[in-house]
Every structure is written in structure tokens, then in C-alpha cells.
């Protein structure tokens, strides 16, 4: 039994009272704490008083109902002493509200309660009652819950009841109202799993009626039902039926249906098997890459990564890759972006020689794309091609692209580019960090946008961890220390932020020799913000490094204890106190 602690700052009685408050905000707050109330008053009173009271809340605002179903979903079954039955009427009522998310949650909670009822007979009796009442309700949206509940219990009830349930589903699937038919289409995949209780004829007839439906969002969900059916014996018996229906969906007039089909290609391939995929569906994917709708080209390009595992190397080379050449120049940036995110996954499959001849050119074209989002997406998948072609061979061709991105107008692009550069530097080592590349890094450390400078500092620290201080000092740090004489204080701060970030890589000798004079110099800076940060950096170094740097750093702090600026004084004094 969970005992919940009252952290609201209000007494329980007040929370209970506010369930009836006129102020919706207060009602919501109380409803959010229903589990607290239940835990405090105990299971008996929760069963006998709280639950009946909640019935009265049921025609409240949608906002309250959303919180209510959320609250009841938490651990209410435990809070009523394990007697799930008690909650059924409340959840049944919540299946009839306007808000779809509340209906669905409530229906799923009913499913959960069913599994916790004491015996089969009870389950059958109560669930059939609820389903029939919801189905017969005047409120047509209540059928939403019916299609969720029927698959949950159909395999646990008598033959007669099964027939009743099947008839209910049949009627819903032919309902006049499109929304209602949509419910049955969406959840038909759950029913199909119960083949052969749900027999062949039923499945075929229902799917046939769905596919002739004039609403595309009803036809769409057939894809899921077919995928589900392939995991049952139905598939063995009716393979042709299933495959033909898949094909109809792939050729559907509505791009929404084709899109949904394409989106599920990986699952389809998994369910029918590699050979069947290649025989029946591979060509559709290739067709989608040439579809007139940019959405279709985009989803097809996105799926390359997943479906490439079904294709063999020859087919990728001869059929897929030629199509990519036109996609890389597509007018629509979303299409090119999708390509950028998945094309590199082909490299490991087709091997080094083919990658070099076929993928590398596409890579280099996308690298120069006019849309910086495309370039960044490409970079995020870099390791897929570097693992095949080797980091070294790519590094040279990548540098011009990096240089351009480093100056992009969008600061987020500039920040992402730093991470890419860091990736190469860490993989290749100091040879990658030529003068040209180092200059990029220094420029980023002096970027006009604070967030870019911060990213540069962090990545520099990472690099230094790997490449070591002696290298860093020769090639990088001396230049950074030089920032201390820049006129703009925001740039001077970079010196102190850098020291803080690389502290773990520094040894005490270096600190005494190089860092300390810097700190001493900057402690006399005319701008108080610099002096504040000298305090912060000094105390950090003193604590992290200890030993012979502590005393000199203490002296720096002491010199700032009488600073004219109140914040600097405070920082210096509290730093010394903490030592």
C-alpha cells in the first residue's frame, strides 16, 4: 500500500474541499492530488466515499477530466485495496467524454482493471456489460472505447459472447459516421491478432470494406492490420490476399495512404521477409523516390536507412543509387535533408570501393548544399562513412565545407559545426589541426554570439584532454591567453572560462608558470565582471588542484577582498572562507 507524503503545503481537508471549488485552477490542483487524498483516507473510505464523489466531477471541463484520468491511472487500483471492480463505473463514464485522449486513457485503464478481476466469470460478465452499454450509447464517440476493449477480452469469453462481439465490430466498421469507422480501422490490428477466433472470412470481409471506403484515413490503417496479420497463421493461409492488399495501398490515389505505407516499410519488410520484400515491395520504394509529391520523396529518402538491409548490394548499386543522383538536387530542402540523414548508411553495406565511387560524390554534393540544415544533418551521420572510407581520406575534402559553415549566419549552425570539427580532430589527432583548422577554432572562441563561444570552449577542453597540454600550449593556448588584452570584456572573459573548463587537464607547474600570472594580471582589470570571474576561477583551481597552487591563489583572492565592487568582494571573501 503506497503511503504518499503531503508536499502540497495544504491540509488534506482543504484539498478535499477544493474538489468542489468554483475556481477551475483549484479543482485541477485537488484532482492532481487525488492519490494523496486516497492514501490519507484509506482504501475503505476511498471506495465508499471518494469514488462515488468523483462520479459528480464527470461533467466538468475537459481540462479537469484530463487531469482526472491521469490521476486515476496512477496507482488507484492499489489505493482501493486492490479491488479494481470499484473503479469500473468511473472509467466507463470517462469513455464517453469529448476529449479523445481521456477516452483512450480510460479505455486502457478498463483493460488493466479487467486483468485484475478475481475470476473469469466476473471478467466476462462485467466487460460484456460495459461494452454493450458503450456500444448502445447515444453518444457515438463512445464506440471509440468499444474497439479498444473488444480485442482485450474476445479470447476470454464464451462462444456466444464472441459472436456478439464480432457483430458489434462488424457494425461499427460499416457505421455511417466516418469517425466511427475510423475507430474500427485504427484498432483492427489488435483484433486480427486473435485469429482464428476472429476468422478468415471476417478479416477479409472487413478489410475489403475498408479498402473501398472513400475516406483515406480509414484506408490508411489497413497497413497496420496487415502487418499484425502477418504475425498470425492468417498470413500463411492468405498470403496472396495480404500481399495484394499491400500493393493496393502502395498504389492508392491518396498520397496520405502511400505515405503511411512508405513510413511502415521497415515493419512490412520484417513481417513478410526479405525475399518477399524484394519481390513485391522494393519497386514501390523506388517509385516513391520519384513521386511527384515532395512528402513522398522525403519519406522514401528517409527510409533508405531501414530498407537497405532488405536489399542486396547489386540492387542498391544498380537501382537505388542512380535515383539518388536526382534527389540530391531536388528543389525541396526537406527532401535533400532526408537524403542527407540516410544516404551514408549505404556505405557499410556496399563496401569501400563502391562507397568511394558512388556514395562519396553524393556526400560531397550535399556537403555544398545551399541549405545549412542539410549540411549539418549530413555531418551528424559522418561516422557511417568514415568507418568505411577512413577518416583521413575524408578530412581534406571536408575542410572547405567546415570553413563555410563556420561563418554561417545562423549561430546554431556555427555551434554545430564546432562539434563536427572536434569529431575529426579527436579521431585523427594533431595532423588534422592544421593552421587553417586551428584558425577556425580561434575564430569560434572569439565569435560574437556567447553560446558559440561556450561551445568552442567546451570542445577545446575535450580536444586538450586528448591531445595534452604541451601540444595545446604550443598551438592553441598561447593565442587564447592573448585574448586578455582585447578591448571587449566579453572576449576577455573567454580566458577565464577556458581555464575553468580545462582545469582537469592542467598540472600545477603549468598553473604556477602560466595561469597564475594571467590571474594576477586580470585581477587588476578595470571591469568588475572580470575580477568576479578571477575569484571564481581561482577558487575552482585551488580546490581541484590543491598542493602548491593554493597559497598563491589565496593571495589573488585576498587582493580582491577590498575591491570597490560589492559582488567581487563577496566572491573573494566567500571563496577564502570555503578554503
Amino acid at each position, binding site marked *: 500500500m503506497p503511503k504518499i507524503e503531503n508536499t502540497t503545503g495544504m491540509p488534506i481537508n482543504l484539498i478535499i474541499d477544493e474538489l468542489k471549488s468554483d*475556481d477551475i*485552477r*483549484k479543482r485541477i490542483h485537488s484532482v492532481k492530488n487525488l492519490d494523496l487524498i486516497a492514501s490519507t483516507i484509506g482504501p475503505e473510505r476511498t471506495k465508499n466515499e471518494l469514488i462515488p464523489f468523483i462520479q459528480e466531477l464527470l461533467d466538468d471541463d*475537459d481540462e479537469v477530466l*484530463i487531469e482526472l484520468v491521469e490521476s486515476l491511472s496512477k496507482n488507484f487500483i492499489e489505493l482501493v485495496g486492490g479491488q479494481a471492480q470499484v473503479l469500473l463505473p468511473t472509467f466507463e463514464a470517462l469513455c464517453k467524454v*469529448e*476529449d*479523445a*485522449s481521456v477516452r483512450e486513457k480510460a479505455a486502457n485503464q478498463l483493460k488493466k482493471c479487467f486483468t485484475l478481476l478475481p475470476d473469469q466469470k466476473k471478467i466476462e460478465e462485467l466487460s460484456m456489460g460495459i461494452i454493450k452499454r458503450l456500444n448502445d450509447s447515444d453518444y457515438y*464517440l463512445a464506440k471509440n472505447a468499444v474497439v479498444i476493449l473488444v480485442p482485450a477480452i474476445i479470447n476470454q469469453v464464451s462462444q456466444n459472447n464472441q459472436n456478439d462481439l464480432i457483430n458489434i465490430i462488424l457494425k461499427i466498421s460499416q457505421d455511417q459516421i*466516418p*469517425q466511427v469507422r*475510423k475507430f474500427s480501422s485504427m484498432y483492427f490490428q489488435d483484433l486480427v491478432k486473435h485469429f482464428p477466433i476472429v476468422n478468415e472470412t471476417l478479416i477479409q470481409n472487413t478489410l475489403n470494406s475498408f479498402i473501398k471506403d472513400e475516406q483515406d*484515413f480509414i484506408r490508411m490503417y489497413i497497413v497496420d492490420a496487415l502487418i499484425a496479420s502477418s504475425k498470425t497463421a492468417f498470413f500463411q493461409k492468405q498470403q496472396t490476399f495480404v500481399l495484394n492488399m499491400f500493393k493496393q495501398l502502395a498504389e492508392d490515389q491518396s498520397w496520405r495512404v502511400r505515405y503511411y505505407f512508405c513510413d511502415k516499410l521497415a515493419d512490412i519488410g520484417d513481417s513478410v521477409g526479405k525475399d518477399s520484400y524484394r519481390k513485391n515491395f522494393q519497386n514501390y520504394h523506388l517509385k516513391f523516390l520519384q513521386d511527384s509529391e515532395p512528402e513522398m520523396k522525403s519519406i522514401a529518402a528517409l527510409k533508405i536507412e531501414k530498407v537497405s538491409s532488405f536489399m542486396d548490394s547489386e540492387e542498391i548499386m544498380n537501382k537505388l543509387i542512380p535515383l539518388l543522383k536526382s534527389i540530391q538536387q531536388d528543389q525541396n530542402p526537406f527532401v535533400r535533408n532526408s537524403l542527407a540523414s540516410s544516404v551514408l548508411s549505404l556505405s557499410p553495406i556496399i563496401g569501400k570501393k563502391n562507397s568511394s565511387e558512388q556514395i562519396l560524390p553524393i556526400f560531397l554534393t550535399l556537403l555544398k548544399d545551399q541549405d545549412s540544415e542539410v549540411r549539418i544533418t549530413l555531418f551528424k551521420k559522418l561516422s557511417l562513412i568514415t568507418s568505411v572510407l577512413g577518416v583521413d581520406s575524408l578530412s581534406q575534402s571536408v575542410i572547405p565545407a567546415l570553413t563555410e559553415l563556420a561563418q554561417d549566419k545562423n*549561430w546554431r549552425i556555427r555551434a554545430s559545426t564546432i562539434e563536427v570539427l572536434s569529431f575529426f580532430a579527436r579521431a585523427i589527432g594533431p595532423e588534422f589541426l592544421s593552421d587553417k583548422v586551428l584558425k577556425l577554432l580561434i575564430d569560434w572562441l572569439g565569435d*560574437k*554570439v*556567447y*553560446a558559440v563561444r561556450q561551445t568552442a570552449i567546451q570542445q577545446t577542453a575535450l580536444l586538450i584532454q586528448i591531445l595534452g597540454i604541451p601540444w595545446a600550449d604550443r598551438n592553441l593556448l598561447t593565442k587564447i591567453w592573448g585574448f586578455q588584452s582585447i*578591448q*571587449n*570584456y*566579453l572576449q576577455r*572573459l573567454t580566458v577565464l572560462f577556458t581555464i575553468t573548463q580545462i582545469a582537469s587537464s592542467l598540472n600545477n607547474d603549468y598553473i604556477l608558470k602560466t595561469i597564475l600570472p594571467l590571474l594576477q594580471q586580470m585581477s587588476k582589470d*578595470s*571591469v*568588475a*565582471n572580470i575580477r*568576479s*570571474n578571477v575569484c571564481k576561477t581561482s577558487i575552482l583551481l585551488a580546490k581541484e588542484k590543491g598542493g602548491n597552487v593554493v597559497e598563491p591563489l589565496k593571495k589573488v583572492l585576498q587582493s580582491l577582498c577590498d575591491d570597490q*565592487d*560589492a*559582488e567581487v568582494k563577496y566572491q573573494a571573501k566567500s571563496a577564502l572562507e570555503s578554503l
Partner: protein
Amino acid sequence: MSDLDQWITKLKNCQFLNEQEVISLCTKAKEILISESNVEIVHTPVTVCGDIHGQFHDLIELFKVGGDCPDTNYLFLGDLVDRGFNSVETFLLLLAFKVRFPDRITIIRGNHESRQTTQVYGFYDECQRKYGSANIWRHCTDVFDYLTISAVIENRVFCVHGGLSPNIVEIDDVKSLDRKQEVPHEGAMCDLLWSDPEDIIGWGVSPRGAGYIFGGDITKEFNKTNNYDFICRAHQLVLEGYKTMFDDQLLTVWSAPNYCYRVGNQASILELDDNLEKRFKIFLAANVEQRGLIGRHPVPDYFL
């Protein structure tokens, strides 16, 4: 100190404080603001920011571009509340910064920092929604009365929210005002918060119904009399984020990108470095992901 640091952390996550905490913060703020002059002295280096109007996530974006407080010094030219969805969090965060780091941030009063305006343009309603009563609004508007109404940077740049007043010739005229009151309907204090520059000669009637419009001659005269390089103000939406007028004698800074989540404008901040060199930094509105606004309510079924 640690209370303040906790509040700052909470507010940075766009979580508003509870009623007790707000009252405590407002009390502390008044103690600090009461001793500020009508013409607050500000030193370089400092970054000047225009209207924010409750666009909290764009304020966070501003800090990403300009640097965090207190490492960067800031001067906000008012209009922190109204119109945006998060006036409460915006105002309280900047107020908390002011109390914790009084020498690192200065806040000037804008025409929206007033009881009348906030009842019409959103701050009052937001307080009601978030706190269930008008208490917090009352405490905040009391703090507004204490905010200073102008600042001067290194005796060379005059900063005010709106513009000039026919009743203000010398800077001492500002010092002699009594600012600790609701923004009046007319008079010098009202003008400073409501006026706009315009390509005219002399003074004119303002279409806003408060303050005046004033021309380049007035501006240059004021700057000459008081020995200022230029006037820095906000108050008017600028699509490019900033605008200079009258041979750089007046500057408008606007820091609310995509104003009202609709206009699609850029925003800017003005960085003045140690030697009063000017640098404008332009920035755009924060992305949807940064705003953390995923609709909780699914589209009603009949839209299918």
C-alpha cells in the same frame, strides 16, 4: 543569498515562484530600487536591451547571444510585461537578477510597467491565471512605482524608454521629478515613457494619446545642452531590431523577436564595450522546441 539563487534557478526553468516567494522578492527589490536616482548612473561596459513583453523564451535566447547575467552587464529599457505569455516569469527573473546582482543589471520603467496598461494588455490576466488572485499583480505594480525612469551611461548616453518631453530641457529636470507613483496621464514623467521620435521639426501631437512626437532638432538640442553623444530608447517596434535616426543622435533598440508571436521581426541588443564602442547583435525568436510548447490538447475529433 541562497534563497535568491534558488529562485533564479527556478525562474530560468520558466517555473514561476509561489506567492510567498514573490512577495519576499518584491520587498527586497523595493529596498534596492528606492535608493536609485531618477537618472541612474550606469558604467560601461554594458549591453542595452529594448522591449521584452513577456516573451520569456526569447529572453533566454537573448542571454545566449549576449551572455549570462552577471558575467555580462545589462540595461533593460522597460516594457518587460504584457502581450507575451510569460510576463510573470520574465519580470520576476529580471527582478531576481537585480536583487542578487544590483550592480550588474539596471531596469528602467516602460509605459507598460503601469497598473492601467497591465490591466488591458495581459499582465493582470496572467497573474490571475497563474496565482488565482490579483495579489501578485498588486505587489508587482507596487514595484513598478520604484523603478527608475532613465539612465545615463558614462555621462554620454541618455537612456529612456520612450523619448523626450517639452518639460525636460536639462537632465536635472528629470532628477527633480517624483517618480514613485503610477505613470501619470500627462506631464514630464509620462512623456519620457510614451514619446516617439519623428521626422518633423519641433514637437507634435502623439497618435498614442500620451507623450509627444519630437523631431531631430529637439533631439540635437537636448544632446547638446546635456553633452550627450546620443539617446538610446525602445518603445517602438523595429523590424530589423534596431534603427538610428537624426545622424545617429537617437537610437531605437527592440528586443522582442517575432513580436506577439506573429510579426516575424528581428530583435537586437546593443553592446557598449569598455570604450563605448557600439556593436549591435541581431537575434531571432527561439525555436518551437526551445519553447517546450507541445499542445497538450489533441485536435478535436471532428477535424479528423
